[in-house]
């Protein structure tokens, strides 16, 4: 250290103020530790709040209103064609982000968590060098690396801020509603944003490398969404690669190589949503010997310790699934481990939600995974066509399915497609965490009429007798593999 530099000591240094980082910082502070959180950006909240989960949900909720208004004609309610005031939509959306971000600052202040706005680089195993703040060094006893992930681009394609070729960050800024939008990537980000833009009025073309969208998600859960985007998008092209993209003054030319032909097409904007990569580089972790895997994820143990035991890593940078709720739990585990508690990241299931319309949510074992592992499971399905509540919501194409251990009836996984799946999956996750059985769920009274009933009835299907679905004798719960 050089004279004149400003240095400070802290017990716990948290690097990154996203869900993993702030959960770790807050929990550590609640446990009585002295915590300093270093965040590069002016606001806390990370990708989730600033350019991910929250803004995308603001857009999707808006799209749902527009969609429902049009669909209401079926039940005899006619609205005039909605007009979209983009400036107002942006302001409303940004207002939500401001509210939540300043809320995080207040929560930090109340807990005496000091937030330093700076970029942090490990100078040695107990010192961070801070760039962009008056404070130049922060020494710590424990560090939590929660620097998250960033969108991947296509090879050779670089994104300019405000350009026509965008990543999810650009798309969520909603500069305009392009007449023709190319979405590259059929994962949940491309699908969610593609759906929102399509409802807002874009003619959307989705290209996806693989032969089906949402790889790894069970077929029967994806099918209603495939049907929906078939009508909503102008075109869905599977097994298609983007060969080249040229941006010019009034559009983007894309060369799309499909299984049978290669086409050159013009779009007004392009959204690249081909995945995310951990941001483990450039932090000085390599020099400390913090081990990472081939994909760049920091390797951690069940307490979220890295190979340097007083340095922890949580959230996207510490491995899949890259989900805020997983990061938050990891952050709490790391904080508790630092405080000397015997905590471990031992969750049985991390729920995943795709916020398209219909929504898809799943937790625990999937049918796809059960097949791959050749596990004997029984699967009970309750189609929403048999749910009164679903019919009033025009959601008859929904499905609730539960995977059971054939011997004990223990719940191994749950999958839902349909509106409200985001909330319903919670019952499945709780059941998984509790080690609940089919009977536990079937004997739990579910309010009528609600979509949650479909979960109770799916458990009844497994047991051989469901009120609103006839189960032929001996046909309860399909066993897989056959």
């Amino acid at each position, binding site marked *: 250290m050089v004279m004149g530099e400003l240095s400070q000591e802290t017990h716990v240094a948290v690097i990154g103020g996203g869900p993993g980082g702030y959960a770790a910082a807050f929990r550590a502070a609640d446990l009585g530790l002295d915590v300093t959180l270093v965040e590069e950006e002016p606001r806390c909240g990370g990708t989730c709040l600033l350019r991910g989960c929250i803004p995308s949900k603001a857009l999707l909720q808006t799209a749902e209103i527009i969609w429902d208004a049009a669909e209401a004609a079926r039940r005899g309610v006619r609205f005039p064609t909605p007009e979209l005031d983009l400036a107002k939509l942006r302001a409303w959306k940004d207002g939500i982000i401001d509210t939540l971000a300043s809320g995080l600052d207040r929560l930090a202040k109340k807990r005496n968590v000091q937030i330093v706005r700076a970029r942090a680089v490990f100078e040695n195993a107990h010192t961070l060098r801070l760039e962009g703040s008056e404070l130049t060094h922060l020494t710590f006893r424990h560090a939590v690396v929660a620097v998250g992930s960033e969108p991947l681009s296509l090879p050779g394609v670089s994104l300019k801020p405000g350009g026509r070729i965008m990543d999810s960050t650009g798309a969520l800024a909603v500069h305009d509603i392009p007449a023709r939008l190319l979405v590259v990537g059929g994962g949940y980000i491309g699908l969610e944003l593609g759906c929102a833009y399509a409802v807002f009025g874009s003619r959307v073309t989705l290209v996806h490398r693989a032969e089906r969208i949402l790889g790894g998600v069970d077929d029967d859960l994806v099918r209603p969404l495939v049907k929906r985007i078939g009508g909503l998008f102008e075109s869905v092209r599977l097994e298609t690669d983007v060969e080249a993209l040229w941006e010019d003054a009034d559009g983007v030319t894309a060369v799309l190589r499909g299984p049978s032909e290669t086409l050159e097409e013009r779009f007004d904007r392009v959204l690249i949503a081909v995945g995310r990569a951990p941001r483990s580089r450039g932090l000085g972790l390599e020099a400390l010997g913090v081990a990472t895997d081939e994909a760049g994820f920091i390797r951690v*143990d069940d307490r979220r310790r890295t190979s340097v*035991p007083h340095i922890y890593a949580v959230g996207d940078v510490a491995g899949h699934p890259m989900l805020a709720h997983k990061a938050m739990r990891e952050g709490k585990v790391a904080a508790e481990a630092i405080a000397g508690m015997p905590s471990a*990241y031992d969750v*049985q299931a991390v729920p995943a939600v795709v916020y398209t319309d219909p929504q898809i949510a799943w937790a625990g074992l999937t049918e796809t995974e059960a097949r791959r592992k050749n596990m004997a499971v029984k699967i009970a399905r309750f189609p929403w066509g048999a749910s009164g509540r679903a019919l009033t919501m025009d959601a008859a194409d929904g499905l609730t399915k539960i995977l059971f*251990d054939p011997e*004990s009836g223990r719940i191994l996984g749950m999958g839902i497609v349909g509106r409200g799946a985001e909330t319903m999956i919670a019952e499945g996750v709780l059941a998984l965490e509790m*080690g609940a059985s089919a009977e536990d769920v079937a004997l739990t009274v579910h309010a009528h009429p609600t979509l949650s009933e479909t979960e109770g009835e799916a458990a009844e299907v497994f047991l051989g007798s469901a009120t609103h679905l006839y189960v032929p004798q001996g046909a309860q719960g399909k066993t897989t593999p056959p």
Partner: protein
Amino acid sequence: MAKIFRLPDLGEGIHEGEIVEVLVRSGDSVTEGQPLLIVETDKATVEIPSPFTGVVQTVHVEAGEVVHVGDPLVTVREAGEPAEESAPAPTPAAPTGVEPAEAAEGLPVAASPATRRLARELGVDLRRVRPSGPGGRVTADDVRRAAQAAKTPERPEAIGGVAPPEAHETLEEEGSPPPEAPPAPSAVPAGVPVFAAERRVPLRSFRRVIARRMADAWARVPHVSHHDGVDISELERLRQELNRETADPARHLSLTPFLVKAVVAVLKEFPAFNARLDEARQEIILKAHYHIGVAVDSPRGLVVPVLKNADRKSITELAAELRALSQRARSGELNPDDVSGGTFTLTNIGALGGRGFTPIINYPQTAILGAGKARLEPVVTGTLDEHTLTVRLILPVVLAFDHRVVDGADGARFVNRLKTLLEDPKMLLVSL
């Protein structure tokens, strides 16, 4: 390439063993041949050496676990792997859970998140807790009970129900255990009436094997025990004389090798006692060799190392071999080979006293000879009218045999012949 090392076939039809100790941790460097774990099988305790040189990436087992042949034990990353070079060499606390799903074969233990947290707090391995909930669900109370049991210091379980309030115990234990973890026993002052919770000690390893085999033998074999007393005065004089001539007290002869030699001689005359009943084929298999098991009281419990081909070894040789085997038995270093193949068993409880006892046959053998503590006893010889009283050294012996294979008269003849050989060392000499 990381290599998974699985429990190898240990031979002798051994399919499972209990991990006694894990000698390495993830992150440790190991060289080929270096012991990784100690596994206790039905027959012996064996060190499992590493077949590779490298760095331990994951240890899949922990002490107390029962593993089967083919189960993964440790994953070793071979030395000089480029992908792992970024990891620093001295990582004492290398991540243990870096490959989450792979290690977890089968379902995780059904227990609520709060129960799992409690288990971590109390240092209880959920996989080793006996579940009380439906479908094998482990409850918070199960975890507290397990923690309590683990805390209680190891001591032999009280025999004969000495704890007075038995009825209370049952109710307290099975019905509604106290919600708070009860204090450790040491915290209970003496004299305070305690409804002491009975302790449950898992039947593991040697104890489990002994239990199974004894019950098996007792259930299958109709035992007959034939008792007698053998005058070993002359033999004892001979033994003492021989030992006086041996300077090294470690090489002094005990009675056992003489007994072994005598037994072998009698077995040659009565082959049905050196036999096995093949129940399936309804045949008696008469053994062609004389492998004499000798029961040894080891810290782990009863073990029976076998003196192979005892008929072809001298008394001194047998004594030396027995010393080595006993030593290994006491230190838990017997190989599976050391304890297998016996055709007849000798159990000499003499050192501990006792006048008579009824040993259990080491099934599927046909017979076992027990010896008690030799005592000086008054012996009357002569007729009703003319007799003399002498003091002789009498060894109580008992022959337990399978009445399906041999009859009581055979047993009596066997013991009579044994007496002849032991009572007169010259007879023993000519029978060698």
